[in-house]
């Protein structure tokens, strides 16, 4: 272990030696080390969130054929810092009728629920917080805390818009949690473990994306919905409920919600990479050293984040009834089908060679996709036919004549 190859563990060992050298017990030294590593991880995540503000603004500008922030620093890189200074300097307005404690707790919890995810994110083969054996469920549990923070924010603001926005968001989030949890079962059963590190290691011949492309797609869609981003951003439909659940939040408290949202999107990009795209693995390149592996992971996560942004800035907002119907009548049945088919195919092909195994699973997914498209096609045709037979299309002036006989 040397400084150039693996600086993080080198420094950790050195610090541990230093602390025990001062006469501290080994347990205490380990706790202090853990605290230091936690603080570093969280500060890294926060710095990343600040950087993501810049990325987001630059990318959306490119999507919309603009330049984006370009005044402060090279390429406008210091723009988020200026934003933060502005947010910190803003007056913190608390509505007089708000439920003070819950109102103040909600943004903290919103950001903390995202930060908690970084405890299990494996950046490299030996850079990770903790390798839980229930990590996949831990992801769901942290999401539950996020949902809670939104309900708390909406309720404590004492504002009808906030409450409506919060309820819409929560209805949306909990609905899309079902396909997401169902799809999380797929990497679990393919890898035979729930630890994210184990799942990363299990993708050694083929990424799970190739074994279950539909699963990856459903995961991405439900992740976008979980995040409450466009096209599922009903929580902040400006024309209907103004800013949604964070309408009463000003200054840095709003900033926490915003940072939490961006970091959440990036983290989900990271989890997409871990669960379906091999995490820090990339054709053996990860063996060069932990820093290289971490870089690979971050690039993959950034790619996932970029796709989420791409969806956000391309799609228009969906109506709430459409959104819930899309989830319950399409995504959930599809996720259940994919799960069942993957389970059976996995068992049937278990003894065969890796090539046949991968190809079989891939073809099964393809068959499901084709069948789905055919069913949707037939259903759409049928619906158009019934609508045409029951309600003839209006001729010009017909509506007026009907109303004024």
């Amino acid at each position: 272990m040397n400084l150039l190859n693996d600086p993080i563990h080198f420094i950790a060992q050195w610090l541990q030696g230093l602390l025990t050298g001062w006469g501290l017990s080994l347990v205490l030294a380990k706790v202090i080390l853990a605290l230091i590593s936690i603080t570093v991880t969280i500060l890294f995540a926060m710095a990343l969130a600040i950087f993501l503000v810049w990325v987001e603004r630059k990318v959306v500008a490119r999507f919309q054929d603009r330049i984006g922030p370009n005044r402060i620093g090279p390429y406008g890189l210091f723009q988020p810092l200026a934003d933060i200074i502005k947010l910190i300097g803003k007056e913190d307005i608390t509505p007089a009728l708000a439920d003070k404690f819950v109102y103040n707790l909600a943004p903290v919890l919103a950001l903390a629920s995202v930060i908690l995810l970084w405890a299990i994110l494996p950046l490299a083969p030996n850079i990770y917080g903790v390798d839980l054996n229930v990590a996949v469920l831990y992801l769901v549990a942290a999401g539950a805390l996020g949902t809670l923070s939104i309900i708390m924010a909406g309720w404590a603001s004492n504002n009808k818009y906030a409450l409506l926005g919060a309820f819409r968001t929560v209805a949306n989030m909990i609905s899309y949690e079902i396909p997401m949890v169902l799809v999380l079962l797929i990497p679990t059963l393919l890898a035979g473990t729930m630890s994210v590190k184990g799942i990363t290691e299990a993708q050694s011949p083929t990424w799970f994306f190739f074994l279950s492309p539909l699963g990856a797609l459903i995961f991405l869609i439900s992740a976008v919905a979980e995040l409450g981003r466009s096209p599922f951003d009903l929580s902040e439909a400006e024309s209907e409920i103004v800013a949604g659940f964070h309408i009463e939040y000003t200054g840095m408290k709003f900033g926490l919600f915003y940072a939490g949202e961006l970091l959440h999107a990036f983290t989900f990009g990271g989890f997409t990479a871990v669960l379906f795209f091999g995490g820090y693995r990339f054709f053996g390149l990860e063996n060069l050293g932990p820093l290289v592996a971490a870089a690979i992971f971050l690039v993959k996560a950034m790619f996932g984040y970029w796709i989420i942004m791409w969806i956000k800035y391309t799609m228009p907002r969906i109506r709430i009834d459409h959104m819930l119907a899309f989830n319950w009548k399409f995504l959930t049945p599809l996720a259940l089908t994919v799960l069942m088919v993957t389970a059976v195919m996995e068992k049937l092909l278990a003894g065969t060679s890796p090539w046949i195994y991968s190809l079989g699973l891939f073809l099964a997914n393809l068959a499901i996709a084709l069948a789905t498209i055919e069913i949707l096609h037939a259903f759409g045709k049928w619906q158009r036919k019934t609508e045409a037979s029951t309600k003839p299309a209006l001729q010009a002036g017909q509506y007026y004549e009907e109303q004024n006989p």
Partner: protein
Amino acid sequence: MQNGWLYIGLFLIVGIIVPILPLLFSRLVAPRKPNSIKQSTYECGIKTVGDSWVQFKAPYYVFALVFLVFDVEAVLLFPWALMLKRLPLFVALEGILFILILVAGLVYAWRKGMLEWL
């Protein structure tokens, strides 16, 4: 394993403290001049009418209900999915039976028109 949970606990504590810091800092530097108009509920400049904690329509509850049942189901499937690789084929069929029983519930709710937002 307990060490892992200790780590998560520390992570939770630090993860709550770190977001509080900018709020405290902002409290120090930001101006504070509250008045009653500023602190009133923001509803686009129109005076607030009635209680803010309004009553909600029932479909929210239906979706929460279906979610609850399927969430429990999906969570219970995790031990099954975990062991699938190590056990024979009929285990997969058990899980599928488990799923299909619940799909009946989804179909029922669908047929009753409970999944419509009306």
